[in-house]
């Protein structure tokens, strides 16, 4: 007997994203506090860098205003990037609710992606006012349209890299249910090698080599170095190409992990 698989429709996934946005909006207080905390951190980091430069112990050849711009934009990117868009996978594996997801005529990983993206879009929209506030507080540089445009492309690729890393991490829950320890390690490595807190270019040469060989640099470092002009237009293609390479590699790993995990659920019952 031939059974027709229901026709694929995008509409439910758009709805999933919209519902995720509506859900996030119910936690308005959360959103405001996280924006407030970013603004405080923007201001504090500026003080730290200013103090460092004033004592003439400048750790790199980056001028002060470039490094302040770098940290401020990094913190704003963090508002979006630090959301674990795939946390839902782990939560639903843990509670067993994943069974009810599989009982619906939907492509389950796409459901998680849509939900996570809704969350991210909601937060991204909130960044605009915080960006304006940040401009008022610390006067960051705003580059020209070519640099800015490339920055956003690079930011998007970095977002996909982050999504894949999170997805792989949450897939570990298919086998262990608990991912807290793994998550701590990955967060620590990302903080160090992602370039969110400290620009990778001020690392010693040896550590720079390591950092730039890892996928984490594709998340924050690449778009940020494009923004402050360390990566020049002639190297844009190579930089974006490397990010795209990581998206493909990590996307492949994520797919393999998902297939194996889903198979485990339907054969072993989770």
């Amino acid at each position: 007997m031939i059974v027709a698989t229901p026709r694929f429709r995008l509409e439910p996934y758009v709805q999933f994203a919209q519902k995720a946005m509506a859900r996030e909006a119910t936690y308005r207080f959360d959103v405001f506090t996280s924006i407030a905390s970013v603004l405080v951190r923007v201001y504090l980091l500026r003080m730290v860098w200013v103090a460092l430069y004033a004592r003439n112990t400048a750790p790199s050849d980056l001028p002060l205003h470039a490094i302040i711009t770098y940290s401020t934009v990094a913190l704003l990117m963090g508002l979006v990037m630090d959301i674990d868009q795939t946390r839902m996978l782990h939560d639903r594996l843990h509670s067993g609710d994943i069974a009810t997801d599989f009982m619906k005529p939907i492509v389950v990983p796409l459901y998680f992606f849509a939900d996570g993206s809704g969350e991210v879009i909601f937060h991204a929209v909130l960044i605009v006012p915080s960006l304006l506030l940040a401009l008022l507080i610390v006067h960051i540089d705003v580059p020209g349209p070519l640099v800015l445009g490339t920055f956003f492309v690079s930011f998007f690729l970095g977002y996909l890299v982050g999504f894949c890393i999170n997805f792989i991490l949450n897939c570990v829950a298919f086998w262990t249910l608990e991912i807290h320890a793994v998550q701590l390690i990955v967060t620590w490595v990302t903080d160090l090698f992602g370039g969110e807190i400290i620009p990778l270019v001020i690392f010693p040469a040896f550590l720079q080599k390591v950092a730039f060989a890892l996928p984490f640099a594709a998340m924050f470092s690449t778009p940020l170095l494009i923004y402050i002009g360390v990566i020049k237009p002639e190297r844009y293609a190579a930089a974006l190409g490397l990010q795209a390479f990581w998206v493909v590699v990590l996307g492949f790993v994520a797919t393999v992990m998902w297939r194996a995990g889903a198979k485990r659920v339907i054969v072993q019952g989770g």
Partner: protein
Amino acid sequence: MGKGTPSMAMIEAVGLRKVFRSLERGSGIWGAVGALFSRTFVDKVAVDDVSFSLEPGELVGYIGPNGAGKSTTIKMLTGILVPTGGKLRVAGIVPHEHRMANAANIGVVFGQRSQLYWDLPLRESFELLRSIYDIPRARYLENMRHFGAILDLDRFLATPVRQLSLGERMRGDFAAAMLHDPKIVFLDEPTIGLDVVAKEAIREFIGTVNRDRGTTVILTTHDLADVERLSRRIILIDEGKVIYDGSLERLREEYGTHRTLVVNLAESYPDVVVAGTEVVSRELNLVRLRFNRRELTAEALIRRVTERYKITDVSIIEPDIDSIVRRIYLEGYHEGTIGAPS
């Protein structure tokens, strides 16, 4: 379906089997550590050679103690668990091979889980389901109106699900499972934790849907009152095997051999002894006598009692399905052991 074609069963399970394989682990912390390195597997047979067939529009109680294999069976029927052996068709489809097509045919309610969006008003979950199942707008509105009336949903459609009472949430979950007019619904412990009024509302709804829409229903439950109220047929399962599949009446007929006569004595007697009966309990002048209805009619028994004692009132308690099922789990089901003393 053409003329003369035999009607196709809605659910057809033949020799269904599910074996879970897990790592062997010892007890205590060393057992847990050892399990990290151990490669010894233990097989656990959860469902063992289960066969049954359901006609369209049937309502069946699927009953068993914890760990009997009820949920495992339901998971295979919904296509989220691959059987180890046997054949299974749900509305003509092999569930795990066509998970998406099967999902469009079924509705599921878990008493212990909700498929509603926790943080959003109830109505939003329904809108989302309309989109997931591609329900035509007119049909959706009609169903919303219909379920809204039976389940009294309108009062809390705008309330976020997390603020609903358990009874309200369950009513929402039932509407959610039925919104796309599934051919079959699986109800897993749907009345668990509900108060009497909410239980009754849910049972009423299940009965209505089954009767008016011809929806096939499989109901797993611990509360046998659900079954007594709703289904004529029950399937009893224990340790992964079907131990009884038939009507509730037959089961009662075969196993419900003992009735209880409740007697109100007019005077206090030191001892109450009636031939052919056993005193189950006595509180002052209220005595409960258990007797086998195959050996003694109620009429004869009352005559025996009144010959020896002065009484003010009598009543008879029929065996409830709960005690019958409990007895079968303890002793096993044996066909033809009718009337055997318990």
